[in-house]
């Protein structure tokens, strides 16, 4: 756990730049293994990855964009105009 900087281990600073490739399953297998090995040894990076996942979670739950009454009215008018113009 405290044996840092041995061999070709990832540093935390390197790991944070690989997080998206990791989550997107875009890391080649050896890189992924290095990433997982670092995570297993590093609480800070586990917390960082968790923060990224929570951030993605909140982004996915932003208020669903909804149509306003004004927009609906305007679009119906647009449609009727088009239909009249198209001779339907």
């Amino acid at each position, binding site marked *: 756990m405290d044996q*840092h*900087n041995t061999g070709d281990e990832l540093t935390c600073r390197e790991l944070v730049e690989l997080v998206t490739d990791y989550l997107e399953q875009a890391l080649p297998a050896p890189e992924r293994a290095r990433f997982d090995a670092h995570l297993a040894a590093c609480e800070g990076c586990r917390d960082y990855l968790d923060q990224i996942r929570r951030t993605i979670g*909140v982004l996915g739950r932003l208020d669903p964009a909804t149509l306003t009454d004004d927009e609906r009215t305007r679009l*119906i008018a647009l449609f009727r105009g088009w239909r009249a113009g198209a001779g339907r």
Partner: protein
Amino acid sequence: MSIALSPQSAGGTSPGTDELALVEALRRGDEAAFLALVERYHAPLMRAALAYVGSRAVAEEVVQETWIGVLQGIARFEGRSSLKTWIYRILSNCARSRGAREARSVPFADLGATGDEGPSVDPASFIPPGQVDAGWWSSHPASWAGLPEERFLAAETRAVIEGAVATLPPAQRTVITLRDIEGWPADEVCQLLAISDANQRVLLHRARARVRAALARYLTEG
């Protein structure tokens, strides 16, 4: 409403049967069919348009042009892509031509550029080079495990996130909007924006890193 879209039909690469029914109805001038489309896609199109052009007034015009394009083009829709992809392609074209007309709106030429080249995390958070354990955390990110779920769902927290997204460089904003807010799969985003998979990931990475940083500042200071 007589015709509805199932959520499953929104993605994918070819239109589902209900989409085809909708297209047929729209060609006949069926207002309910148009309304079904509008209910489903107008607000997400507005969000995507805002990501492209950055100004609400221009985004509204772009989406209006998009709907006109849909109505004018529906007779020629061949179903080689999903209806959603086809509609977003029209939006993308409208936004592009708008960008060409108004220099201030869309840096579409730069969509392949990543926006900023800064690191994901403030370098001061890491032990500096030359010291023992260089590159490891000098100050750990806070654990969010103890924060109550309500904290993440609070209107104020979501406002922080919306604000962070709004201030991203346009290409990053577009990608994170489509991927993480609208839930598009990566391949559809690449196709729509005509960017490589690797480029899409770089944009998404920078965007997520900046939004995370804003959220971390808010949650630990607020």
